[in-house]
């Protein structure tokens, strides 16, 4: 089978096939014989060409969180993948909230023209303030929240129309 993963804007195709108690895997031009053992729920020891490797993982929908060698890699499986949340998309007309928190200041309203980098609104979370800035110059088409509203990660805060030619 082939699976495709996406991370930091890059695609990673992986070939895999069951092989006895283990798997044969190909990534780019390298081939691996792998066995996997779950030592406790979510924690695995893989043997990759005989070398033991420890990983921990959790997946939800298309999201994959894998701990390996002291780092957590958060990426997505490409098929059946849902809209990404929690990250700025430089071209999207929808400015989503990167955090859950409370809106403490709204600086824009419908029809307003803003510069790239201009503060649109301010969210307070975990006792700190975070400013949500315009990713590009454009016109504010709408802002569904007012001061005091609670927002969740991934909610659309502001809709914008990008100024052409920029």
């Amino acid at each position: 089978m082939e699976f495709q993963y996406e991370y930091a804007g890059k695609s990673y195709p992986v070939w895999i096939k069951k092989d006895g108690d283990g798997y044969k895997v190909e990534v780019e031009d390298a081939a691996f014989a792998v066995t996997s053992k779950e030592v406790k729920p979510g924690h695995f020891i893989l043997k990759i060409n005989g070398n033991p490797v420890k990983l921990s993982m959790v997946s939800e929908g298309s999201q994959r969180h894998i701990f390996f060698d002291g780092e957590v890699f958060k990426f997505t499986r490409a098929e059946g993948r849902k809209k990404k949340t929690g990250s700025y998309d430089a071209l999207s007309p929808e400015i989503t909230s990167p955090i859950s928190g409370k809106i403490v200041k709204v600086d824009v309203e419908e029809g307003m023209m803003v510069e790239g980098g201009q503060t649109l609104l301010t969210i307070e979370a975990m006792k700190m303030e975070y400013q949500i800035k315009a990713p590009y110059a454009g016109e504010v088409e709408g802002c569904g929240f007012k001061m005091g509203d609670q927002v969740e990660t991934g909610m659309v805060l502001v809709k914008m129309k990008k100024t052409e030619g920029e």
Partner: protein
Amino acid sequence: MRIERVLVANRGEIAVRIIKACQEMGIQTAAIYSDVDEDSLHVQVADEAHSLGDPTPSESYLNIPKIIGIAKDCDADAVHPGYGFLSENAEFASACSKAGLKFIGPSSEVIRSMGDKIQAKKTMKSAGVPVIPGFTGEESETIEEACKRVGFPVLIKAAAGGGGKGMKIVANHDELNGAIESARREAQSSFGNDELLMEKYLEKPRHIEFQILADEHGKTIHLFERECSIQRRHQKVIEETPSVALDDELRKRMGLAAVKAAETIGYTNAGTVEFMLDKDGNFYFLEMNTRLQVEHAITEMTTGVDIVKWQLKIAAGENLSLDQSSIHRHGHAIECRIYAEDPEKGFIPSTGKLTTVDVPNGVNIRHDTGVKEGLEITPYYDPMLAKLIVHAENRQEAIRKMHWSLSNYITLGVTTNVPFLRAIIENEHFKDGDVDTHFIDTYFKDWTMSTELPVEVLIAAAIDDIGKTSVGERAEASMKGHDVHSPWKSAGPWRIDH
């Protein structure tokens, strides 16, 4: 007095820490929790727990009447405020006293006197504790004259504001006039007030603090220093003790100054005197924290003194039986604060469900936490999830132990700063002890993790996904065949070596 039941007016790891200390001492504990904290660890470990309702801080952990009411209802005779929240709130300390509850900390007068930072510096200056020289507008001299007295470089700032507006570093006399003019303009336009303050600008300053213990019978000792220079936006990230910047002579002088500061104001219970230390070994009083501190654990590990238990004993009127001469340190301790934040996205706080938590366990590794696997991290409170503290024979071994611990610290579901902490621990300047309060800005301005997925991670994901695929799908896939791309034909016999 005998303390029979303590209400712990806090949440998270520090509430858990205090509750366990009480339980060891045979003291009953009552926890409080807001709606979003119902499943938190501090609620489970306490002997009883009481709801605060609405999670908004002002309605829950900052709500003085509600907390005092619960304490009275459950027959508590003392209140431990932890750190943060109401711990340095003089009104709360005084409300406790009025309600007949022992506040575990100094008196409300002492809290108030140290809460006013300008007044605190004045008090310390007149007691002979060094403060940063500068100009406050009250001197009988001009700001220019004061600069000459203090010596360059100096820092000019607006009396009315903060946030960097009107703030100028002046390297020498030639730059002074221009800087003052510019600062006045900015101050006027930003705050409508062009008054300026000035203080000596410390180059490569370190943040060094001394832990104090003082009983209610006039005895005050210190438990040595902590080096807290690794900060981001004035928030400590990594602390250690001892500080490599202090020799025995300087340590002794600073310790005496810290005890002097505490004695001057009649300090009782545990507290911390914070100093700035410049590169020439001059130290200046910064402020006093009139409470238990986040980083108290590194002092506990190196001195063997249980600070929280002493807070309880001192509050119960016991004599401090520890003598300054009997306090010795062993080895070196380092603390890393584990925050729910994303270092790659400007340290934005992360929320969500902690699906997996597996923390390193080993010799002299201490993990103080208020969270557990399965818990929801909400945006209401401080993003600190836990403290990871290690203790070893010397600094080099402590760094190695911390490196091992961070490399084995697994949390999934909520992004943490663990990889960022590990990067600091690996930094050569950190290893050399060459740190100051600008360390993170200097070396970690645009820090990011690797942008490539390791092949091990891809293999693990694929094995997980093939396991989820139904037999039908698998059969179909194998029917399709991928002969052109298939590696299996040429790869030779597959063998698992072990």
